């Protein structure tokens, strides 16, 4: 798997293309005021991403990593805490991407409420390696609380599009 620096350069390139596409669309429609502001934003984006792409690329060629700077961001990050084996981290990241996608996929087939309970149970068992007791208790409690919230707050629940089971 390529290093993060390379991924960053690739991403910058992709974003550059996105801005370029937006710029093309906007400039094409620039006769109408609808596209004036987007044109301005897209062109600025092309410039910014182009510069960043070039800058990062030359840094990588010089053998430096571009992902080591500090950045103002918020929330938890996989790098918090003690450094862990990067292969382990990558594996977990990949696993979680799959888990995250699995939830909506499952709820396309089963009603969301039940899909989510099954999903949580699966996550706790296979990713979290929790005991069955823990899973049973926590899933049931969660199910009850969620049910109460859904009914009390009239929360809309996504329908199972594929099977139509609710």
């Amino acid at each position, binding site marked *: 798997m390529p290093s993060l620096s390379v991924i960053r350069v690739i991403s910058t390139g992709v974003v550059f293309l*996105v801005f370029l596409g*937006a710029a093309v669309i906007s400039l094409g429609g620039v006769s109408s005021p*609808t596209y004036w*502001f987007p044109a301005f934003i*897209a062109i600025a984006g092309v410039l910014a991403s182009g510069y960043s792409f070039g800058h990062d690329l030359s840094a990588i060629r010089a053998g430096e990593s571009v992902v080591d700077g500090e950045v103002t961001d*918020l*929330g938890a990050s996989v790098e918090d805490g003690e450094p862990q084996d990067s292969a382990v981290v990558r594996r977990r990241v990949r696993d979680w991407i799959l888990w995250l996608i699995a939830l909506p996929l499952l709820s396309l087939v089963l009603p969301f409420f039940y899909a989510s309970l099954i999903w949580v149970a699966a996550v706790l068992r296979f990713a979290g390696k929790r005991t069955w007791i823990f899973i049973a208790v926590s899933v049931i409690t*969660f199910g009850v609380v969620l049910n109460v919230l859904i009914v009390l707050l009239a929360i809309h*629940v*996504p329908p199972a599009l594929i099977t139509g089971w609710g």
Partner: protein
Amino acid sequence: MFESALEALQMILSPQNLLWLVIGVGIGLILGLIPGLGGITGMAVLLPLIVGMDPASGIGMLIGLNAATTIGDTFPSVLMGVPGTAASQATVVDGYPMARKGLANVALGAAFTSNMIGGIIGAIALFLVIPLARPIIVGIGSPQLFMLSLLGLALVIVISRGALAPALITGLLGMLLAMIGSANMTGDYRFTGGVLYLFDGIDLAVLAIGLFAIPSVLSLLVQGEAVSKGMSYTRGGVLRGAREVFRHKRVVVGNSLLGTALGIIPGIGGSVIDWIAYGATKRMVKKDRDNFGKGDIRGVIAPEAANNAKDGGVLVPTLMFGIPGSATAAILLGGLATMGVATGPTILRPENIYLIFVFVWTLAMANALGAIASASLAGPLSKLSLLKPYSYAPFLLVVMVLAAYQSGVHWGDIVTVVVLALLSWGMQAIKWPRPPLIIGFVLGQGAENYLWISVSRYDWSWLTQPATVILGVLVIATLVAGFANGSGRLTRLASSILTRQKVNDA
């Protein structure tokens, strides 16, 4: 006037009205606590209950809900690094690092105290400002609103550590995302690709959950470790935090006033105000500016004070002109209309003045109640930061996906939120700052409309209007100060272009 104030107070204190106030506060705290669910969910549900309610009860409930949501949303922001609502993002920047250092209860104590003080100052300001509201609201036209949007953007770019280009990229990406949907001035759809779901653009709630909330939880799960190993002050941590607030009086009061002022200006969304407060505070403090982002308590006090103060400010255009300052204010207007409460300029008439006081007292009491309730919960709840993520995080993911679905009640919401979450997680990995993205998004569409109206109406003479000039100077000053930053960032940037060396900024 004094009699109206007393009359209003008596109305609020009646047991029935108090009960509804408490109910509103209770629901608001729960909604704030659950990341992703916000005031809008609750208010929409409470609306049917309002029919036929006595105005003081209805106001008590709605305002209680509103105020409590911005108090409760601090819990997940500090304890898990997950913004409870879109308005609580800036709190995470310093609140979460504090939790990681074992100072979760201190952060929470400080936050709730600032909430209370900010909310009360906001309530007082509501009362003082409403008679003066007219010249303020009438005086702030589209050119000034455009400049204010630029100022907000400048502040966020300026608080970004690190290289500038990525911040610009994400900011511009955010603004580009805001362009999806229909353009107000012509009604044409842009960048939608014929997908009906996108005709209204991307919803802010979906963006907020996908951009910050879900990636944060995912990171916690990947790490697998508890947020912090131990608490520094198991007893009295909350009080410690409260005391810290009084040590930083200027930060609290200044940000409360700032929050109120920004709330008054219709057109500056609630989710930007906490960033502006954070950025302004970071700019303006003299000591230890670099500590911001690493767990500086002022970084918690500032946005939390501004957040609650803005509730008072937002009521000014809402009550005076029926211009809702935020989505929740729009629902509030609907609730008021249902109860037959007059809004609009008639609210200044002598027979209606007591209504203003009802709002003022309700705001003050809701903030006080919510803050005290939260502070008492802060001790036990802050132990959450000691739990391993698998105990709570998977459940949170389910709730957040469900919460995202509430915005448009459309499967597109779920697809969007998952896609955004994965992209955002990637952005975090490659060290692209994400705050500029959401700010660019929030301010982008407003900026476009204001610019369009300014240019159409005034050609280019709007640039020379006195208020516009003052604001423009502020924008430039902010950007310059941010570049200069005492570490020669501008010169370093220039030399990096020349010598192709990496620019790294401490």
